[in-house]
């Protein structure tokens, strides 16, 4: 992450900044189209329309956001964890076959092999190094669990709002957790994430994007898993 001098904050962080801006734009678009859809349904049923702000704080919006967030973080947590042990020969998204596993302290620059500018907890040893060694998956998994829980809580409210409009009894959280609405929302997101990341791992064997770190060099052979580090 250390950058040559003179490049400046914006250039050095352009990837995060652009994705942050795209996220906000997409969320704004989702809110705008979402409130239009919500209000169209309300008019159909002769019910009250809501303001954009009211929709932004509604369970309907929250569940639609959370169901996508949970699947994204699950996808990355799974991919980060599974690529420790599983490989795909020829894919730039994989380690070399034969390199499966946690690797040595020397390879991972921890403990006595830590460098002067290594993170403090990589050098500290003990539980701190063990915890830091899994911090990426742990945080991804925690955010996944938080988003999935939020999906369950908000999804139940949104589903119950709809159920009572249709003169049905509301359901408790336990019943909602085994309901078609909860698992439908969950699995439709999981399958698309798994498809995307699995496809990425395989496409990266044969296809190239010149200049992208997610791709092998254009001229790298298909059988080579990591053409350069």
């Amino acid at each position, binding site marked *: *992450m*250390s950058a040559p001098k003179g490049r400046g904050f914006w250039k050095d962080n352009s990837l995060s900044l652009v994705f942050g801006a795209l996220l906000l734009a997409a969320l704004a678009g989702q809110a705008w189209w979402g409130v239009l859809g919500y209000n169209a349904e309300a008019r159909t*049923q*002769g*019910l*009250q329309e*809501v303001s954009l702000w009211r929709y932004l704080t*509604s*369970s*309907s919006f929250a569940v639609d956001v959370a169901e996508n967030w949970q699947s994204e973080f699950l996808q990355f947590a799974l991919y980060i964890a599974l690529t420790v042990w599983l490989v795909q020969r020829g894919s730039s998204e994989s380690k070399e076959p034969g390199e499966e596993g946690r690797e040595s302290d020397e390879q991972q620059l921890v403990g006595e092999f830590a460098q002067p*500018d290594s*993170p403090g907890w990589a050098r500290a040893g003990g539980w701190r190094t063990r915890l830091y060694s899994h911090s990426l998956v742990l*945080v991804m998994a*925690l*955010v996944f669990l*938080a988003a999935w*829980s*939020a999906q369950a*809580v908000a999804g*139940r*409210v*949104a*589903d*119950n*709002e*709809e*159920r*009572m*409009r*249709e*003169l*049905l*009894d*509301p*359901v408790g959280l336990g019943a909602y957790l085994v309901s078609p609405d909860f698992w439908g929302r969950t699995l439709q997101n999981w399958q698309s994430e798994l498809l995307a990341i699995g496809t990425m791992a395989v496409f990266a064997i044969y296809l190239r994007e010149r200049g992208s770190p997610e791709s092998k060099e254009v001229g790298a052979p298909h059988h080579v898993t990591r053409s350069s580090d």
Partner: protein
Amino acid sequence: MVRRRRRARVRTASVLLVGLPAVLLLAGCGADDERRQAATVADTFAADIAGDPQAACELLAPRTRQSVEQDGEPCARVLEQDDLPTPGERMAVSVAGHSAQVRYAEDTVFLSLFDDGWRVTAAGCARTSSDPAVPYDCTVEGS
């Protein structure tokens, strides 16, 4: 720089871990208020049916009132003739978003939230099936 980034990550995680339960707690308090208000409207509607049907009409959601008056009869007369059950003791109140259900010993009332408060969308409702996917059968409801 590395330390600052690490602090930022810890701050983000703290916001997620502390902020989410706080939001859920606040949502819970708001829901209590909404439950009370929905129950009050349902109770008033039940009392007005017997004592002041015209006032009960004012508590109906627009689509429901339209449905009640569809044969050209005044709303108050239709409600009097509909012979809605005496609800009895209030058993449970559920609120989710803009919808609510108030269950009494002998009746169930559904409500929806409008700009001027909770309004009754269906009353005199009873279950006609043990299948939870089958809606209540209601004496008064919107079309």
